[in-house]
């Protein structure tokens, strides 16, 4: 149990390994999406190129943007970039580091999509079937067809059921040729990406290690600070709400007592905690009134110090005294920044 807690803490403290897990999942999702997608080449001269290249290039773009959207740190980066300088300087190296690490992770799923598409071959076959070199692979001297006719026949290569140009160029020969080119492109693309990744990772310790350590520490710090601030604010909101509601109930019971001209009944000394928790509301009518006034007239967001009884009005009457002091506070605040 202890070890699990330690491992969990390790992963949580290490933001990098958590994000690496996310981008591994995105790469898998990308492969799954491709295999689930029902590729349907239109087999018409002009549409083939558009469809093929569209399927090759549009989903990677979507995946890239999705990589940014799903990354929680993007709002942190935007906030750090746009905040006014104030008393804390801004370090562009930190911003660059955050952006680069986010962009690197967002690139993985698109790169996987493009590689899988090229290695599979259907897209390139669909897109470039009209550009097959008929002279070398088939019979260019076939009974003359016009250019347009040839294009229409070649465009049907991916659709084996309707292909009618077997004398012009054999379907299998053309498909094998296109697929070979597609796979070669795919492997070259993967090799290029891997080499780039390797260079980026291995050149960094040789050149800017100190600057890297600094940027990494401060970007991590900004992230933690934001989380802790949110936690502190949540704690504060909780206490605020608790005191506000307590004061509401106290105000209610005091008002009711005053309205009915009853002497406040002192709770017997041995009543215990339960009586205290009732906050002075001990019958149905009073409870209903409390609920109604909670809905109709919520108390203001202003906690008064817990000493003086507030007289005849609701706790809401604490509001007017605040107004005269507010402009004073604003003026004072203005002076403090000079």
């Amino acid at each position, binding site marked *: 149990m202890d070890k699990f807690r330690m491992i969990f803490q390790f992963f949580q403290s290490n933001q990098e390994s958590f994000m690496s897990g996310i981008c591994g999942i995105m790469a898998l999702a990308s492969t799954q999406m491709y295999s689930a997608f029902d590729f349907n080449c239109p087999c018409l001269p002009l549409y083939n190129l558009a469809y093929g290249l569209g399927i090759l290039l549009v989903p990677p773009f979507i995946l890239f943007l999705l990589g940014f959207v799903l990354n929680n740190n993007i709002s942190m980066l935007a906030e750090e970039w746009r905040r*006014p300088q104030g008393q804390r300087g801004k370090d562009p190296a930190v911003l660059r580091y955050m952006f680069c690490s986010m962009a690197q992770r967002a690139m993985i799923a698109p790169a996987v999509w493009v590689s899988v598409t090229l290695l599979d071959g259907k897209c390139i076959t669909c897109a470039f079937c009209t550009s097959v070199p008929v002279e070398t692979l088939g019979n260019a001297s076939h009974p003359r067809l016009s250019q347009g006719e040839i294009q229409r026949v070649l465009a049907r290569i991916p659709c084996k059921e309707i292909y009618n140009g077997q004398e012009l160029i054999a379907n299998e*020969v053309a498909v094998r040729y296109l697929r070979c080119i597609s796979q070669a492109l795919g492997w070259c693309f993967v090799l290029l990406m891997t080499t780039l990744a390797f260079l980026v990772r291995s050149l960094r310790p040789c050149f800017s290690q100190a600057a890297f350590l600094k940027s990494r520490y401060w970007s991590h710090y900004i992230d933690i600070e934001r989380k802790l601030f949110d936690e502190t604010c949540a704690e504060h909101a909780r206490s605020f709400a608790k005191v506000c509601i307590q004061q509401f109930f106290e105000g209610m019971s005091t008002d009711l007592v005053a309205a009915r001209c009853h002497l406040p009944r002192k709770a017997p000394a041995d009543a215990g905690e339960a009586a205290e928790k009732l906050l002075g509301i001990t019958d149905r009518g009073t409870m209903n009134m409390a609920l109604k006034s909670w809905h109709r007239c919520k108390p203001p967001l202003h906690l008064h110090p817990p000493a003086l009884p507030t007289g005849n009005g609701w706790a809401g009457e604490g509001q007017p005294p605040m107004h005269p002091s507010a402009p004073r506070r604003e003026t004072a605040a203005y002076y403090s920044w000079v």
Partner: protein
Amino acid sequence: MDRFRMIFQYFQSNSESVMNGICGLLALASVKMYTSFDFSCPCLPQYNMAYGLGIMFVPPIILFLCGLILNRQSLVMLEEWRRPQGRRKKDLAVIRYMCSSIMQRAMVAPVVWIVVTLLDGKCLICAFSGSVDPDKFVGFANVSTAQVQQLLAKVPCKDDELMRNNTSHKAVSRYLRCWSQALGWSILLILIIAAFLARWLRPCFSQATLLQARHWSNYIDIEQKIFEETCCEHSRLFAHKCILHFFESMRQEIKLHSFALLREGEGAKGEEDLLRGITDQDQVNKLLKMWYYEKPPLDVS
């Protein structure tokens, strides 16, 4: 104390076993990649050789680079190599040891790919079908030289219309596959014998230097992990203090300007502490606005 011991044990067991785990995963990924890859030989004279040899050699390079990238120790080794000497001497034996262990682990997946490719045989059949001697095979012996290259190039494609009627293509395939598998098994045997000898004979040579190098390479790895963890903890404490200072300074300012009488020690509940003197909507809004427009300086002295 117990906690530190557990952490140390975790880090110690982590380093080697994680690296071996990654190496094994890459080898499995290599086999999976090969089986899911749809090998389709172009069956054209000039393209066959390029395609076949390309499929045999390009993915191993990719797998080797992946093995280097995914191994954390390669970064550690590079940092140790490039760091300025400072007050700690650099021991080249340690760097050499780390380099050799990284290379060994990175070589496993490429070797697995090459061996699987050779044992399967499709790559070699595709690459070298055009280079066999046509006189050895009955079906190709009487064909003109111009045609024979075309025919031989089509041998890997069994469904091609020219090949369907030709019975010699099976002979050529079997011949090439036999060579391919022999090559595959030989390479496997040589590598296993080399690994066995290296591991068995290693204690006979410079065992003491080896133990030292292994200890210090482990040390460098652990030291870096602990440094990162300490930095994480430190930044957490720093952030906590910074935020407390910020709330405190807001509370001071409010005390200074609000003219409200605060009863000191009047039934101080725990909640009042958590409220930190910020008790209404305007104050909260001001705090949040200040947090964005004027973040506190990074100084908690």
